[in-house]
Structures are given as structure tokens and as C-alpha cells.
């Protein structure tokens, strides 16, 4: 049984070229990138080349990129860093109810420190309304943080409109772009956000490395201090192999970007179309404004964890927003924010693809899942096939 991996929003397999690029930095090129001898300078050159590659992928200047330990650190740095920098100007932050916990938990922590946070609702497809956002802005508002694509349902937010509303009033915008890097084109020359978070392992890079884009002249208080690394914006010896891997992944991400709208979206759309043929199945997320690799479906009268494990026993990996599977009893805050009732959330699955998936992967999921759904429904006290 060939395993089928459809959980690429959780993490992606490392591209063999990425691994190959990283390996010398565990062995012969082991220097500390801050050292001025040759060992160190070889590592420094590799870090700067990686920075350049990521800058090219997002249409930024290399100086605007700070390497971090991942998306979560980037989110924490952006939100806390701007909040602390601008607290003298105001103490109000606007975000959404469907952000990643890295943002929501940071906002909750800031509330305990006296900041006020507005959590914007979304419509039934997961979209934020920029007019509602505008209504929430006050003279105290210092930051708006809205994710680019939601990690559970893939809905893409109208960031251009959000930035227009914010910038008219001189407010900074941060966006968690972890799910969109290498998936859809991002060009910081036209994409108006002031800060953006990225992660290496979501685009076939290694885990433990991410980046924060900070537009030139935007000031923030660093989260991690203790050295002059990353132009004094993130202290700590650089994770050279990780950064090199991220750089290679960014280079490959740019090369493969056109495949996202063709190969990956094509596979995703076929998977979605075929699975929607199962009666009592609905799409969670926006039908059109959505990252090309994500598809979240609810199967009435089923339970997500059971679906997930039954698929796993067939060698197919997906994820679920159902309660119980996440280590807590609470169902997905994202699906709840869409206004879905708990029974609908109960039977939800997220399928997320990458350029490494094949037609055969989709065939297999489409072949196996209907029987699993049917078997689970046959146990349900409330399901009737009629």
C-alpha cells in the first residue's frame, strides 16, 4: 500500500534538493555565521544567499527579511513587537476570529497586559468584511493582523482592501502568510502588508526555520534579545542548515509556483468535486477565494477523528477540525466562526495537497473515503439514507 499524504498544510515532505543543499552545513561548513574567520564567513554567505532567495520569491529586499524559528515565532514577534513599539501611540489591535493560535494566543496575552483587541467576525465562507474592519478602527488602533489564507479552510482574505483601509489611517498591517508562501504569488511591491510571517516546512523546507518580513522603516521591538544577529532584530546564532534549506525551498517554490494553479489546484478541484458527490457533504470555506491546495469538507452524521483514523489505516493522511482529535474537547474555532453547528464541525476533514501529490493519490482517496463515510453513518442513531 503506497502511503498517500494529504496533510500538507500541517507540514510538507522535504524536497530532496533541499536536503542535499542542507547537508554540508551539518558537516564541513559548520561555522558560526557571526565568526569573521573563513569557517564563519562561508556560513554567513550561505545565510545571505538564502535570504536573497526568499526575498526574490516574495518580491522584497533581502534587508526586509528576518530569519526566525518558524511561523509561530514570526507571528509572536510581529504582534508583540509592534504592540510594544507603538504602545505610546495607542493600545488597540484588530484581528479576526479565525487566526492561527499563534496570533490569537499572543493577542490574549497582550490583553492581559492592558491592550484592547477586537476579534472580527467572518462570513459563512470565512471572509472578513473590510467595511466592518473600518468601523472598528479607533485613534488608538496601532496594528491590524489578518491572515492571508486560513490554515483550516484556505479562504483568502481581501488583504489589498484591508491594507487600503488601514494605510489611509496610518495603521500597520501584519499578515500570517504561512499557508500561501510558494502557493500563490506574493509580491511585496504590490502586496501592501507591512509585516508578514512565513514558515519553511510548509513549502518542502525543513522544520524549525521561518521568516518575518518587515517593510523598510517599520520599527518593532525585538522579541528575542541577546546579540546583534539579524541586524539586531532577532538574537541567537543562526540556524544555518535550516536557513539554507529554507532558501533552497524558496528557490524551488518560485520555480514550481506556476504548478500551483494548474497541477495542485487541478488535483484539489477534482478531489473536491468527487467527494462532494457523497450525499450530505458540504464545503467549508470560500468556493473561489481560496488557497489552491486546501479543501475542507463536512460529512454529515460522521465524526472527524474516526474518519481520520480509518483513512490512516488505509494509508491516507488528512486532518480534522473535529473536537476530541486535537487534544482538547473544543471543536475548531474556525469552523465555529463560520457559523457551522457542532454536528457539522463534528464530521469535518481537511485535505491539503502539494506539488508532490499525484492523480493516483486523489484516485485512492476518492475510492476509499465513500465506504468509510457509509460505514460510519450506518452506526449513527440519526442518519437515514433516504
Amino acid at each position, binding site marked *: 500500500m503506497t502511503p498517500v499524504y494529504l496533510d500538507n498544510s500541517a507540514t510538507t515532505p522535504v524536497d530532496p534538493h533541499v536536503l542535499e543543499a542542507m547537508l554540508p552545513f551539518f558537516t564541513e561548513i559548520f561555522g558560526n555565521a557571526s565568526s569573521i574567520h573563513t569557517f564563519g564567513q562561508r556560513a554567513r554567505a550561505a545565510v545571505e544567499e538564502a535570504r536573497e532567495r526568499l526575498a526574490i520569491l516574495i518580491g522584497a529586499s533581502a534587508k526586509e527579511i528576518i530569519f526566525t524559528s518558524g511561523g509561530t515565532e514570526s507571528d509572536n514577534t510581529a504582534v508583540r513587537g509592534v504592540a510594544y513599539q507603538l504602545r505610546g501611540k495607542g493600545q488597540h489591535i484588530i484581528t479576526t476570529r479565525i487566526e492561527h493560535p499563534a496570533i490569537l494566543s499572543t493577542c490574549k496575552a497582550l490583553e492581559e497586559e492592558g491592550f484592547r483587541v477586537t476579534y472580527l467576525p467572518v462570513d459563512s465562507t470565512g471572509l472578513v468584511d473590510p467595511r466592518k474592519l473600518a468601523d472598528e478602527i479607533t485613534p488608538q488602533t496601532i496594528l491590524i493582523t489578518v491572515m492571508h489564507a486560513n490554515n483550516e479552510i484556505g479562504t483568502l482574505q481581501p488583504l489589498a482592501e484591508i491594507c487600503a483601509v488601514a494605510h489611509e489611517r496610518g495603521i500597520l498591517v501584519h499578515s500570517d502568510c504561512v499557508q500561501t508562501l510558494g502557493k500563490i504569488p506574493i509580491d511585496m511591491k504590490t502586496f501592501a502588508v507591512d509585516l508578514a510571517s512565513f514558515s519553511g516546512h510548509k513549502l518542502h523546507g525543513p522544520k524549525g526555520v521561518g521568516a518575518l518580513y518587515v517593510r523598510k522603516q517599520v520599527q518593532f521591538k525585538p522579541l528575542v534579545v541577546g546579540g546583534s544577529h539579524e541586524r539586531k532584530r532577532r538574537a541567537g546564532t543562526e540556524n544555518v542548515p535550516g536557513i539554507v534549506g529554507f532558501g533552497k525551498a524558496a528557490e524551488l517554490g518560485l520555480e514550481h509556483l506556476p504548478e500551483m494553479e494548474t497541477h495542485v489546484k487541478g488535483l484539489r478541484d477534482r478531489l473536491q468535486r468527487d467527494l462532494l458527490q457523497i450525499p450530505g457533504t458540504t464545503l467549508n470555506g470560500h468556493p473561489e477565494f481560496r488557497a489552491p491546495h486546501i479543501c475542507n469538507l463536512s460529512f454529515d*452524521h*460522521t*465524526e472527524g*477523528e*474516526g474518519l481520520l*483514523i*480509518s483513512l490512516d*489505516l488505509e494509508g491516507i493522511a488528512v486532518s480534522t477540525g*473535529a*473536537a*476530541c*482529535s486535537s*487534544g*482538547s*474537547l*473544543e*471543536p475548531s474555532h474556525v469552523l465555529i466562526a463560520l457559523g457551522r453547528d*457542532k*454536528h457539522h*464541525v*463534528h464530521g469535518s476533514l481537511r485535505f491539503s495537497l502539494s506539488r508532490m501529490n499525484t492523480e493516483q493519490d486523489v484516485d485512492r482517496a476518492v475510492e476509499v473515503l465513500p465506504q468509510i463515510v457509509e460505514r*460510519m453513518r*450506518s*452506526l*449513527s*442513531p*440519526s*442518519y437515514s439514507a433516504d
Partner: protein
Amino acid sequence: MDSEDCGKNALPEPFVFRRLMDSEPYYSDKLLDHYQNPRNVGVLPEADGEAQRENQVCGDVLQMFVKLHGDTVKEIRFKAEGCIPTIALASYATEWATGKKIGEVRKLSPAILSAVLGELPQHKLHAALLVAETLQAALADSADS
């Protein structure tokens, strides 16, 4: 074996322990067997007692039907819309209780169920609670009728 006998390439004890822990499956084979091949699924139209309970937080729903013969449980059936341990423990409980005296079945507690197919993780204890409560409620219903 003493850790010093492990040889210089062996991992230190805490790492060996950690690695073994990590390789433990999330659910036991016994539990997964009951989930994949649930016993006694269905309804009993002639039931002496029946009950339905729901976990208000996570949404799991369980229905149980019991048929008695004197003071013995003759048959039990269940239907469930719930997570893996809910289905597996309902299957286990119905299989275990069939043919047993009512007094004995009344002793089947959430604590017993939470360990009987392998220790449930903390956030899954609700499954043991739901199964025990529904079974006891169905028995209580049969006593009322």
C-alpha cells in the same frame, strides 16, 4: 541491563525511554478492532430499556437498547455518532455485558471503561463516561418499565 553495559553507541536511558514512549500507538489494537468491527450495532424494537445520551461539548451521541431475561442481560444493541473510543467502548461494553447479571453490569464504571481497552488519554475520558452513563440509563429505563 545496566546502562553502562549498553555500549558506547547506545542512547542514554532517558532517550531510550522517550523513544519507546513515542512508538506507542495512539490507540491499542484491541480498541481499534472494536472501532473497525463494532459488535452489537443496531436497535432492539422489543427492548426492555433504552437510553440516548449526548456529550454537549464535543457532540458525541450514543443510543443503547437492552433486552433482559429475568435478572440477566440477554441482548444489547447500540448506535453511535461519535469519536473512536466512544464507538469502541460501546462495542466492548455491549459484548461484555451480554449474558451477565444486571447487578454485575451496574458495576461497569467510567473508570473501568477508561482502561479496559488500553488507557485513554485525558481528553478522551468523556467517551468512557458517555458509554457508562448511557448503559446505566438504559438499565434504569428497563427497571422503570
